[in-house]
């Protein structure tokens, strides 16, 4: 309980006395590149292959002659939009971004860089962490939209190249029974997950004490806790919004 209390106090520190807006704008742009742009490659690889595998495995399981083959594309689309793109992408990002944030802040803490900011009279939590949180909340939805597109594209490539489904059936399938609200739901998830991953990882890193071993532990703890929180939040959002 004390850890949860400390986490909420930490969140309060983020919105304490801040610096000039121009400083935050510059930091936000740096973090958007560090968190968002540098994650494009891994998101692209993971999403394309997950889409491809989803298509092949769904087709493998759909052997009934009364179910049209275009249903494969419909299932790939809905799986991608509702779960694979937002949740799996964010779990991948929890690993990449979360460990990066925790180890960066942990190293800054043990090498007294955080102390250096504090003695200058700078709110170190706000200066270091707030731009990371905002960048995650801003870039994760973009990455998830990109991932959703690549999931469906990966399914299309795998399905058509292997002959599991024709191009015409796939395109018909992904247009069939489309619910626009699902896109909104897909964008809400990474917004929440981005906040959770960035704040939990920052919390772990910011309060690191000791040496390299503790930085490693903070990094591992950040990934583990972020993944658990993403899965719990995923369930809660599904219950609340669907």
């Amino acid at each position: 309980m004390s850890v949860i209390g400390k986490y909420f106090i930490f969140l309060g520190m983020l919105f304490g006395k801040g610096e000039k807006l121009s400083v935050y704008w510059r930091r936000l742009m740096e973090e958007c590149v560090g968190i968002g742009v540098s994650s494009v490659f891994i998101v692209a690889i993971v999403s394309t292959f997950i889409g491809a595998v989803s298509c092949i495995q769904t087709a493998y399981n759909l052997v009934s002659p009364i179910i049209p083959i275009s249903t494969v594309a419909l299932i790939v689309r809905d799986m991608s939009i509702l779960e694979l793109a937002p949740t799996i992408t964010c779990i991948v990002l929890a690993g990449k971004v979360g460990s990066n944030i925790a180890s960066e802040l942990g190293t800054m803490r043990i090498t007294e860089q955080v102390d250096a900011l504090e003695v200058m009279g700078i709110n170190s939590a706000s200066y270091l962490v707030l731009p990371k949180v905002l960048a995650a909340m801003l870039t994760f939805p973009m990455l998830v939209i990109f991932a959703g597109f690549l999931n469906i594209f990966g399914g299309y490539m795998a399905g058509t190249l292997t002959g599991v489904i024709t191009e015409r059936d796939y395109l018909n399938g992904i247009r069939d029974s489309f619910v626009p609200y699902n896109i909104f739901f897909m964008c809400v998830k990474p917004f929440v997950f981005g906040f959770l991953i960035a704040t939990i990882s920052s919390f772990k890193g910011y309060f690191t004490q000791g040496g390299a071993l503790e930085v490693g532990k903070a990094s591992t703890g950040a990934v583990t806790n972020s993944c658990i929180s993403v899965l719990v939040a995923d369930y809660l959002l599904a219950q609340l919004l669907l």
Partner: protein
Amino acid sequence: MIEINNISKSFNGKEVLKGITSTFKKGETNLIIGGSGTGKSVLLKCMIGLVKPDKGNVLYNGRDFYNSDKEVQQSIRREMGVLFQGGALFDSKTVEENVRFPLDMLTDQSVQEKQDRVAFCLQRVGLEAAAKRMPSEISGGMKKRVGIARAIVMNPMYLFCDEPNSGLDPLTSVKIDELIAEITEEYQITTIIITHDMNSVMEIGQNIMFLYQGDKLWEGISSDIIKTDVPELKEFLFSNKLLREMER
């Protein structure tokens, strides 16, 4: 001038500082010496506001740091320059950006003014050629000098140095000591140095405080330290072979 009154601090029931009182004068190089684990760094952290003491107060030219509102604390912080043990340079910034950082964050100076000030400070510590290099590309001694440049860039009234010559070769140590002493005198700064380096004690120590197990056991000027009759201080001082020979 900095006054510390009855500073006490405990961690998990263990008393690390036991009512330390002292005065550090303007334009003087004040040294806090003692063995490892005697509370030197904790005392420094209490003075710069990183660790809040359980008891006592710290006065900066009469302004009580811990009993002031946040605005006064901020203004006192902005009068401080701190050189951390490892330099505490920001890894993602070049040497020049590290030195410019306090100016970017805390002032409204023009780009040209900031550039001039950074160039002056880097020139003052003899590192103008390393301005574009990253902290990972420079030596330990250079990192300390960049740390000094960053500490003085805001024209501080108080300079704190936590073991400025730890991990450095003797020649570089002497250069760092001389640089700190010169800056202290030149800008009439109140400088406080935490060290256990006996060369620093003999070369630049004007006012010296000896801590032992969280207690202040001795305080005085460097010429008197050799004549001390405090057994713990004698043991600390004459663990150095050269000083043992000097005593004889």
